[in-house]
């Protein structure tokens, strides 16, 4: 098992993907953290479903801005995790790997374990970017940065965990949808389009609202304790611990399905 983890770590570090995606993620989060901090402080926040004006407390605003990676940047660790697996199919290297180590279960576990340090790295980079840019923007707007508030710090810490969990979900996802292009299109489509629309739609329809809390994106935000959607009063979140369980559950179920289906198949 140690050998599998070492091999997978080397696979991840010997291509350029890990730092390319990392830089893209940092750029994206920096952009959104800056824009949102300024928009939330200067902008017209609009009205909720009940017609009341949406007002945002400084603390909620700080948490929302500092955990923006979890709300809007999670496609990057998700995609990286997925590509760790789909790359083996895309470049047809799966056979070579299995010739040296025939256990397919060990392959999946090795990839999950090897993803952990990258998960931590992406999580830390995401939080650091959102806090650095967000705090600067809030300061610029004359708002309190709230960086001495315990709840805010807790949320920032948990946002690292959430981003890390997303990467593990990605590995699981990549073992189900092994076609790299399909996997990336699905990741982008789901994170940028399907889930946001679903959450908004479910948020407007009372009986379905609880379901929205169990969507993976909502679970991730629940973990970090902040959400653009919930801050604006559009949907509720699970408790943080439940968010982590739901998110890791998605990853575990996907990895299990992948191990039992795609990875059992003939490698032709």
């Amino acid at each position, binding site marked *: 098992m140690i*050998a599998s983890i070492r091999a997978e770590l*080397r696979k991840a570090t010997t291509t350029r993907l890990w730092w390319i995606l990392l830089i893209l993620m940092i750029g994206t989060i920096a952009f959104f953290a800056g824009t949102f901090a300024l928009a939330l402080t200067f902008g017209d926040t609009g009205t909720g479903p009940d017609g009341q004006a949406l007002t945002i407390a400084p603390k909620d605003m700080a948490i929302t801005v500092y955990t923006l990676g979890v709300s809007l940047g999670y496609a990057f660790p998700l995609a990286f995790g997925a590509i760790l697996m789909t790359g083996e199919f895309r*470049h047809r290297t799966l*056979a070579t790997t299995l010739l*040296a180590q*025939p256990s397919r279960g060990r392959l999946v576990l090795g990839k999950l374990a090897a993803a952990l340090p990258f998960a931590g790295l992406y999580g830390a980079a995401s939080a650091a970017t959102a806090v650095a840019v967000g705090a600067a923007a809030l300061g610029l707007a004359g708002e309190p940065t709230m960086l001495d508030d315990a709840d805010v710090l807790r949320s920032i810490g948990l946002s690292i965990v959430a981003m890390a969990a997303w990467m593990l979900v990605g590995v699981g996802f990549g073992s189900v949808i092994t076609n790299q292009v399909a996997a990336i299109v699905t990741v982008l489509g789901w994170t940028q389009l399907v889930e946001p629309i679903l959450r908004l739609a479910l948020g407007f329809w009372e009986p379905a609202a609880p379901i929205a809390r169990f969507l993976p994106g909502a679970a991730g935000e629940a973990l970090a304790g902040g959400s653009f959607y919930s801050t604006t009063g559009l949907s509720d979140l699970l408790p943080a611990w439940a968010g982590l369980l739901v998110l890791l559950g998605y990853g575990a179920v996907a990895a299990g399905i992948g191990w039992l289906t795609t990875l059992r198949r*003939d490698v*032709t």
Partner: protein
Amino acid sequence: MDGPRIEVAGLTKRYGDVLAVDAVSFTAEPGRVTGFLGPNGAGKTTTLRSALGLIAPTAGAITFSGRRFSQLPRPAAVVGAHLEPAFHPGRTGRDHLRTLAPLAGVPDSRCDEVLAMVGLADAAGRRVGGYSLGMRQRLGLATALLGDPAALVLDEPANGLDPAGITWMRAFVRSFAARGGTVLLSSHLLAEVEQTVDDVVVIARGRIRHASPLADLHALASPETVLRSPDEAGLRRLVSRWPDALMEDSVTAVIPGTTAAEVGAAAHAAQLEVHGLTERGESLERVFLRMTEEAA
């Protein structure tokens, strides 16, 4: 080196309606190079991948000195395989091997060793995306050698190699077998491996058509005699006793299934003026083709 005996026993693989491999049995012996030959779609790759645990056979088993691939404690130390030149293009040749070294249970220094063995030492630090097909084949072979195996399983290793590369590959597998290793390699051309293999196993449409030492294949090549005479009428009269005989031109007759002695004696008895009498064997490629085209 103590190469394992590779034994394929009753291997069958069905893909839906397609019977890709049908009750295939043969062995590859240590110290010998076994050529696994067949036309496109014959079932070579399916057989080799089944042997290596990549494809689950419908029936039958493949063992290496009695053990299945999945039962080998450190497979890379027993069987090195090169199936297709598939690599991540963004990795260097050395990094490609380094990702596999922990799994093969070898130190990193082994990566440069095998790169040198296949003549890629100079390209070790370059990305594989920039390798030529021949270089990829060499890197595939280096990958197979990483765990210092006692057997090599190679699927069409000569594909994409230039004549110099083929000569090099030939010498390489010959010396591997000479040191006691087992080599099983596939090809769709007999001529490509004729000077490399000791034993031939011929497969076509999923079934074994022939298995023997290469020398025995020569015996199956039936001879034919070419007779030349300026006396066209006399020549035609003489060869008319062999129904298969045909006139290549007005002075040359080709008589399949005969020896020069036979035809020479007949010409002498008929007092035919003879300008040429040659016996030639059917080419091995023709024998091979005949085998693969035979009805199932």
